[in-house]
């Protein structure tokens, strides 16, 4: 295959990995604290809508991003209130947020902008456009490494770099800081945290809030970096894929990078394969089969090709003192 095609697939992989990675890391903070968050998908959708709408009205990508993050946090706190304070069922709360997001964003979109639920198309100034990293043009013609740097590493929006930088940062937070130690502990044995004189409730709210920030970044990326507007249901299962990736990753940030890149790569692969012929048979590869492949892979991998993934032991369970 032409090297240029390989480069272009890898380039797309990076772009497509970013939102999954952001959502996956968000889920990691929440689930490590013991709160399962099936509502990431919905939060991304809400955030994407907020980003698209605010960026259009204000003309500023940064204000759009800020709105997305605030909306992400707001719905995380709602989830936190239901599942931490009220000790409700975390799955139900998450599913409710997903339904709410799918319906409400489309409804508000139609009511406010009358473009079939979409927010108006953004000018480039109101979006996060590609950045050219220093020296990218200079090294372009260096064989092999040149295109690797200028074509794949360089040329993405700032949110892509944030996503990839968040991996080592999350690792450092989890394993090298006091907050990380406590966060990991509260997802495993909240009673141990409580008896050590630390607030279980506060830690879990911190976990879900950080999750909201990441869901906000992921949503903003979809609407104002990858695209130039919000479209109904544009998250298209990214939040769920991120949760699946979190399981392959065994709730580890470095694993999350690998798992989400695999999904990003598969989605990237689908682009040039659409309409391609299967060599020798002359059949066209059905588009649906390609686009479905990441989901099929999810099922296959989850069915037992990843070894035993042990979730945080107290995950999904509200903490109640004895009695």
């Amino acid at each position, binding site marked *: 295959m032409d090297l240029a095609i390989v480069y272009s697939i890898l380039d797309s992989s990076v772009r497509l990995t970013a939102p999954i990675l952001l959502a996956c890391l968000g889920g990691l903070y929440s689930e490590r604290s013991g709160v399962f968050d099936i509502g990431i998908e919905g939060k991304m959708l809400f955030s994407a809508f907020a980003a698209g709408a605010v960026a259009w009205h204000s003309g500023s990508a940064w204000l759009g991003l800020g709105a997305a993050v605030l909306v992400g946090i707001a719905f995380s706190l709602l989830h936190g209130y239901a599942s931490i304070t009220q000790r409700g069922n975390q799955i139900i709360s998450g599913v409710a947020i997903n339904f709410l997001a799918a319906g409400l964003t489309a409804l508000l979109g139609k009511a406010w902008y009358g473009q079939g639920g979409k927010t108006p198309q953004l000018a480039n100034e109101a979006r996060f456009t590609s950045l050219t990293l220093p020296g990218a043009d200079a090294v372009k013609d260096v064989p092999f490494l040149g295109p690797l740097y200028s074509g794949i590493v360089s040329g993405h929006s700032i949110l892509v770099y944030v996503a990839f930088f968040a991996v080592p940062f999350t690792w450092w937070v989890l394993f090298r800081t*006091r907050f990380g130690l*406590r966060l990991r502990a509260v997802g495993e044995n909240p009673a141990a945290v409580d*008896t050590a004189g630390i607030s279980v409730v506060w830690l879990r709210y911190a976990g879900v809030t950080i999750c909201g920030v990441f869901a906000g970044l992921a949503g903003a990326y979809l609407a104002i970096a990858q695209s130039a507007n919000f479209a109904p249901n544009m998250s298209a299962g990214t939040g769920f894929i991120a949760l699946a990736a979190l399981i392959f990753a065994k709730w580890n940030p470095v694993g999350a990078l690998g798992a989400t890149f695999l999904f990003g790569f598969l989605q990237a692969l689908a682009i040039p394969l659409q309409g391609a012929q299967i060599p020798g048979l002359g059949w066209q590869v059905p588009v649906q089969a390609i686009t479905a492949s990441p989901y099929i892979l999810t099922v296959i991998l989850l069915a037992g090709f990843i070894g035993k993934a042990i979730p945080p032991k107290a995950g999904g369970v509200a903490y109640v003192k004895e009695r």
Partner: protein
Amino acid sequence: MAEPAIELVGIDKRFGPVHANKDINLVVEDGTIHGIVGENGAGKSTLMSILYGFYHADKGEIKVAGKPVTIHTPNDAIAAGIGMVHQHFMLVENFTVLENVILGVEGGRLLKGGEDRARAQLKKLAEDYDLDVDPDALIEDLPVGLQQRVEILKALTRGAETLILDEPTGVLTPAEADHLFRILGQLKAQGKTIILITHKLREIMAITDRVSVMRRGEMVATLQTARTDPEEIAELMVGRRVLLEVDKGPAKPGAERLRVEGLTVVDEWGVARVDNVSFSVRDGEIVGIAGVSGNGQSELMEALSGIRKAKSGRIVLNGETIDPVHEADPAKMRQRGMGHVPEDRHHLGLVLPFEESENIILGYHRRDAYGKGFNLDPDLVRADARRMNEKFDVRPANEKLKTANFSGGNQQKIVLAREMDGEPAMLLVGQPTRGVDIGAIEFIHKQLIALRDRGKAVLLVSVELDEIRSLADRVLVMFAGRIVGEVPPETDEGDIGLLMAGVTQKEAAE
């Protein structure tokens, strides 16, 4: 004289309608080991949880070293020099020892400094007391005895002067318990104060200086241990005379009722939990299986009762050979006359939200006596439940009450009634008196011995060595899924303890 280490004045606590602590006064002298005994629900744990700041008393005052202190959270307790070793360890299992020790007292936003400091502290403590643990070991890889040591280290590194231990020996082998008591002795020698909550009178007699007895939320007495005896303490606990010794005549074993040959049971990861076990039980005898919890007793019981499929082996019951690999079926085992009192009555024995009459027939509900065909006639069921309640002294004798509202002892009597009422030829009994108060223990023991004397075979699994020794006619010891020895029940407790810790009889003889 020095101020008392801890003084509780007029502590009162209610949980809704339950009056858990009624105007409790307690003085714990500095540098002593002070025992607190009482039956389940007497309020011991509540009182200690109040002292540790886990619950908040409705009324009352806490004084530490003579000064009144306000303890609202465990942090306040730690600051006042109070540490607690909980019955269920408060450890994060996939953390290292070091991580568990620093949790909550990291000493800064980053972990590095705190870890180094704790490492040095642990080294010092290991030298001062007999408290050696590898700081980098994962908790889940450590045996329970060492996990408990980590809990003690946690308290000591936080500067505890008074250490509360809640039922510390429940999960330990006798040898580990002895080691713990030596450590407690050393701590006392260094001037620490220890509060020991337990229901084992033997431990109270062995290591405490003073003992306080609680009953139904009240503090009924505080005694000098040297000037009392187990009978007096038991009477104070229960409020009436109790028989501590089990009254039983010699067994008259008959024909073989159950034979187990080469039984192997593996867990979901393929690890052998029961490893090629063979033994037999005869009519008219109680065979006890001793062992520390988690050495395959549960899996053995589950395989014998048909709940769990075995990997290989053979079960012969009433002369009929059963293939435990393919024919595991609890209903069929019951039909063959095998009763089963499961180890964990909440998990396997009862449906707590059901009314009592439903639980007392569960598993036997297909009998025609309870209704024809598909029908279950509540009147017939309740009538039979009333009969069984009377026979087994279930209190309150109200078959319409939700099972969750019965005390532990009475819940156990419900299970026992269900499994014993049909006079099973063979009865499997797991932990018959776990979480059961002394009065009910006496009743349950009597029932089991009466069953034996009626010529039935009983297989008893218990982690309480005292119980095994006083009930069983033969004792099998299980360790790591194998039966490592058979001894008569009169055998010295220390010798059985060695077997329970995996030292074989041959090794012990050498």
